[in-house]
């Protein structure tokens, strides 16, 4: 019973905030879409992302290949994907997963 009362008080507070501040309303919207946002500890992900702007390449060979826009970019990276299928046939290049860009983790990643 008391749990219900508390919940409704919180709801009332949120409603009040929505009426009072558009910024808080936007925050609520964001938190609804990305519940894990802002809960990770240790410095700001945003700051770290900002410090390392620019695409990271595996090495200079990788960089030169990317520059030349070769089709060999389809080859996988050294780190294996967790969902890699160990299947029943030898994979051909078309079966291999497309190489992911080595970007800094998205701010929305968990």
């Amino acid at each position, binding site marked *: 019973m008391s749990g219900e009362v508390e919940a409704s008080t919180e709801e009332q507070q949120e409603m009040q905030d929505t009426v009072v*501040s*558009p*910024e*808080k*309303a*936007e*925050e609520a*919207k*964001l*938190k609804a*879409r990305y519940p894990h*946002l*802002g809960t990770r500890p*240790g*410095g*700001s992900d*945003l*700051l*770290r992302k*900002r*410090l*390392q*702007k*620019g*695409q*990271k*390449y*595996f*090495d*200079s060979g*990788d*960089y030169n290949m990317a520059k030349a826009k070769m089709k060999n970019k389809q080859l996988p990276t050294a780190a294996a994907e967790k969902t890699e299928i160990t299947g029943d046939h030898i994979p051909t290049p078309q079966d291999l997963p497309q190489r992911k860009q080595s970007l800094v983790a998205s701010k929305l990643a968990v």
Partner: protein
Amino acid sequence: MPLFVPVSFPPSERDQKADIISTVEFNYSGELLATGDKGGRVVIFQREQESKNRPSSRGEYNVYSTFQSHEPEFDYLKSLEIEEKINKIRWLPQQNAAHFLLSANDKTIKLWKISERDKRAEGYNLKDEDGRLRDPFRITTLRVSLSHLFQWHFELQVQPVKVPVLMPMDLMVEASPRRIFANAHTYHINSISVNSDYETYLSADDLRINLWHLEITDRSFSILYAISDVPLPILLKHVLPYIVDIKPANMEELTEVITAAECHPHQCNVFVYSSSKGTIRLCDMRAAALCDRHSKFFEEPEDPSSRSFFSEIISSISDVKFSHSGRYMMTRDYLSVKVWDLNMENRPVETYQVHEYLRSKLCSLYENDCIFDKFECCWNGSDSAIMTGSYNNFFRMFDRNTRRDITLEASRENSKPRAMLKPRKVCTGGKRKKDEISVDSLDFNKKILHTAWHPKENVIAVAATNNLYIFQDKLN
């Protein structure tokens, strides 16, 4: 508020691959306007002088010089690409016939000399008709022979070296790099600022500020002035590599980065730097070699009850500019422009809302990264007006005396030569009037991040993505 019209110089017909303009800057006289772009190129425009023959062309800016300032590089140690995009251009005051400017990408700053050549030396006779260099000993020879009369006979064969004559030629503008200041920034350069002593300049990245001497490229200095109040001569000390260093010992403790820095226009020992938390620190280089203790700390108190997830992000200062008088400074954060009196640290003296209607759109602006856009701001020559950009190719001007503001648009449709710019208005809710634009139809890809105001006249340059617009006061 001056009434602005586009200068008859139309926006250039740049092809689709033309690069996004990343910086715009007038020189000290306003005669030259430099732009830097994402492709590492610098284009300098020169104002055409008034002439009775073509009165309609008064005030036009035409291309004066184009050169490739920076090239893309690859940092092998970190496997990171270093963009060639020009982040900032700053002119040096003109001291002789040539013009000098500093251009910076993320890592390297270059000093460029732009000089004119309108004469060519002609009439050299150092080469034969077939192009071979003449033997210098043969050009002037003295032949001595013994005549049959036993008299020395001197024969002077002279093909004198001709003194070349200077002949006029078509004007050629050359840009040459005179200094390259490299390898001093671990993080990305966001600002450069020339000191009022015209001998030093500072460069700032996310965590550190360097002070350079324009003549010396192999290291940057922290500078201590001699004990007396006379600013010259300068005592150089290789004490510390940076004048500001906010890098924490443990990077996980990082909470704040440097976003912009500028030297005071008159006091060569004073500079300011702004942070991602909306604070500004004023430092005096006479106080210490490492300016980690600020002389002044500017911060507007925040109402804790209104704090949200977005508060810190939108308070991050994207630009800081001293007024020409040196008495005020202006900061730009995401939604507003603030004017600070240097003598008052606890709050700004003026606050202008640029696009307050975006406060109810912060969620989507965060998702599309627009909330991190870095808008610049600028003063007019007399410090009576300020200008900054917004979205949808809109830019805003505020008159500090009358408190009036205006929204204008930089677009081809609205830029017929000599037609006055029409004020624009964004409709924030309810019924949309004719000619108003609703917040939801704003184009957030059309952002005006870079604007510049002529130092003396009402002429403004506005960079809208890859187009440069120049407007001037109709009343002139």
